[in-house]
């Protein structure tokens, strides 16, 4: 049997953490291939539902990356994100989901090495936690509360 490889969705802000990931590339740092990145302009844009949607669709962990406090490109979006993150952590626990599956890190544009470390660490943590589907099988089976249905499936049916 193939060993379990967790899938991580990274929700990264355009100005700090996304650039740190770019810098990790330019510096040819090697890190776990488990991370898949979605770019948003500011971590403050991230809606709790984006995180839940990721879990629902098969993510084993979600990594939110933003600028350090005080460094936000949009003044204080990262603080807005922090508030939602803390609340969401509590919500996850109520769903029976290990809160370690959601992680928030402040990673500036120059901290490629921190990004590498965090991704490798997080991958290890998720390996230990095992697949999300085992932990919360009902969560993924539930009907999506999202305003969009599974986008492409819907389209194929209509075709």
């Amino acid at each position, binding site marked *: 049997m193939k060993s379990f490889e967790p899938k991580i969705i990274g929700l990264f802000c355009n100005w700090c953490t996304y650039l740190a990931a770019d810098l990790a590339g330019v510096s040819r740092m090697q890190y776990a291939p488990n991370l898949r990145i979605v770019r948003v302009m500011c971590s403050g844009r991230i809606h709790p539902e984006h995180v839940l949607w990721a879990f629902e669709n098969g993510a084993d962990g979600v990594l939110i990356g933003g600028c350090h406090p005080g460094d936000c490109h949009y003044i204080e979006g990262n603080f807005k994100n922090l508030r939602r993150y803390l609340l969401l952590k509590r919500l996850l626990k109520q769903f029976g989901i290990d809160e370690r599956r959601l992680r928030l890190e402040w990673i500036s544009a120059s901290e490629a090495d921190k990004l590498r470390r965090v991704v490798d660490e997080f991958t290890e943590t998720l390996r230990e936690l095992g697949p999300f589907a085992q932990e919360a099988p009902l969560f993924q089976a539930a009907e999506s509360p999202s305003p*969009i249905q599974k986008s492409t499936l819907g389209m194929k049916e209509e075709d």
Partner: protein
Amino acid sequence: MAGRNGDLPRIGVYVCHCGTNIGGKVNVPEVVAFARTLPNVVVAREYKYMCSDPGQLLIKEDIQKLNINRVIVASCSPHLHEHTFRKATLEGGQNPYLFHMANIREHVSWVTDDPEKATEKAKAIIEAAVYRIQFHEPLESKQVPVNPDVLIVGGGIAGITAALTLANAGKKVYLVERESSIGGHMAKFDKTFPTLDCASCILTPKMTAVKDHPNIQLITYAEVLEVDGYVGNFTVKVKKKPRYVIEDRCIGCYVCVENCVYKTPKYPSEFDEGIGLRKPIYIPFPQAVPLVAVIDPETCIEFKSGRCPKKCQQACREVVGRDAIDFTQKEEILEIQVGAIVLATGFQTFDASRIPEYGYGRYPNVYTSLEIERLVNSSGPTGGEIVLRDGRKPRSVGIIHCVGSRDRNFNPWCSRVCCMYSLKLAHLVRERTGAEVYNFYIDMRTPGKGYEEFYEKLLHEGVHFIRGKVAEVTDWTINPEEAGRLVIRVEDSLIGVVRRIPVDMVILSVGLEPRADAEELRRLFNISCSAEGWFLERHPKLAPVSTYTDGVFIAGACQGPKDIPDTVAQAGAAAGEVLSLVDRGFIELEPNIAVIDARKCSGCHVCIALCPYSAISFNETENVAQINEALCKGCGVCVGACPSRAIHQQLFKDEQIMAEIEGLLMVE
């Protein structure tokens, strides 16, 4: 099925090999074959370099011949080439925002060890792009006018060069300098390497030109306090510190300085690195621009006790008739409007006392290189005479390279200028004193036009070169030859012997490091720093003077250690970038703004309090929130908070983000 915009999505996927950068790791043909199986993908192609003309032509031709209406390029970071491919999409005849970039170089091929895993990750990112782009819609970018005026922060050679270039092009320039005179570090030097031309002879005319230029407003003894706004339209608050001398009235005649109650200078002069002394009222150096006196309230008796006879003021009033001294002067806040900003805030030198074994601060005859610059300077405190603290001439001098540089305990980087300025100082010391000069170096680094030749010349001037990192400087002597002198202990790594070299004077070639307050400044201007603390350029090769904050440019040693020629070149480049920005007259803003659907808005006010730019207001008659497009910067904070889902962010709609997440998770 019809797409969200009424048209059927016809997607073209273009996977770039980027030479071997992507192709060497990711199995591109496999990825392309996979892309062909994805929904609504009409065509998937691979090409060696998608950013090249033939690569872009593939996109344009497919748009025209195959009616492609969604374009995905899987290549490098959108920060590098998003603009290139949006333009290609536009030139092909489609709206440029019907494009999406899949980053499979920085985020995949360059960071993944295993080719198989890299290929799978690339597939996932492309699938995500295919899912996402179904929800893209045509957008129009907004144009806003650009204020052609420019702010330059820092009046060293970088700031001076940029200011003159821009002012000569007819732009209004505000040059803000923290010290009471412009000139920066270069004004302190005597000679410059490798041509040995006199620093002030080439700098002073430029400083004067700044002062006399009708397009330059020089604001010295001032610091930037606040920066507001965005590219093309910045509002900057500048704090002008009180110098207690009215600038417009002072003619720099020194009468006040001569009449100060202190008959002789008593306090260490900042400009002379503490080697020379000054009075509480002083002009930092004779070529200062503006040539205006300044009073230091920390040392002036009037400020300390209020009981000074104020002879300086009396002399200015009665002898000169200018009445320029004003003890009641207060700090002033100026507000200026500019379209672009150049940061040229320079560097500071490494604090040599951090290496106690070199004895700086403990042995009087251990100097930093900057102190020696003042000592050899003909307008310095000794008139250019190189003497020890007790006035004797040194018979032998040791110059220690790489102090604080290339050292894991301190700064790991090479400061780039120290080898060359050490050679210059070796030449000057040898020429003026005839002393034996020893250079202690780790590696000799002389890349630059005429630099290696200068080193070659020094080798024939009788200067000694000893390869090895100095262990310590000590006054613990063991033989009569060493008595009363300093001993440099070093392993000469070319002959493998530990040597003791007795000298009279030690010069520590201190490295360059970011200014102590670079971090505060960076935050003020909303730019990034490298891990070491240097201001971060947008791209190390292709955009060396731009930053990730549009309209803010960097020049000179604030970006990293560099010598005068490189600094001047960068200042010119920054001026060029500013011109290309402001001369266009307008800028196009990303259409990633937030939009409120009034039908869904419940009027709860949540978004209004969250917006960092006060771009959202409440429409009392309609009972809904409304966004001022001109003020929205597109962060999306309101979108993430709206409980009614009434706000969306263009280019980052929920459907787009969630479709992307879904796509990323489809590939195992």
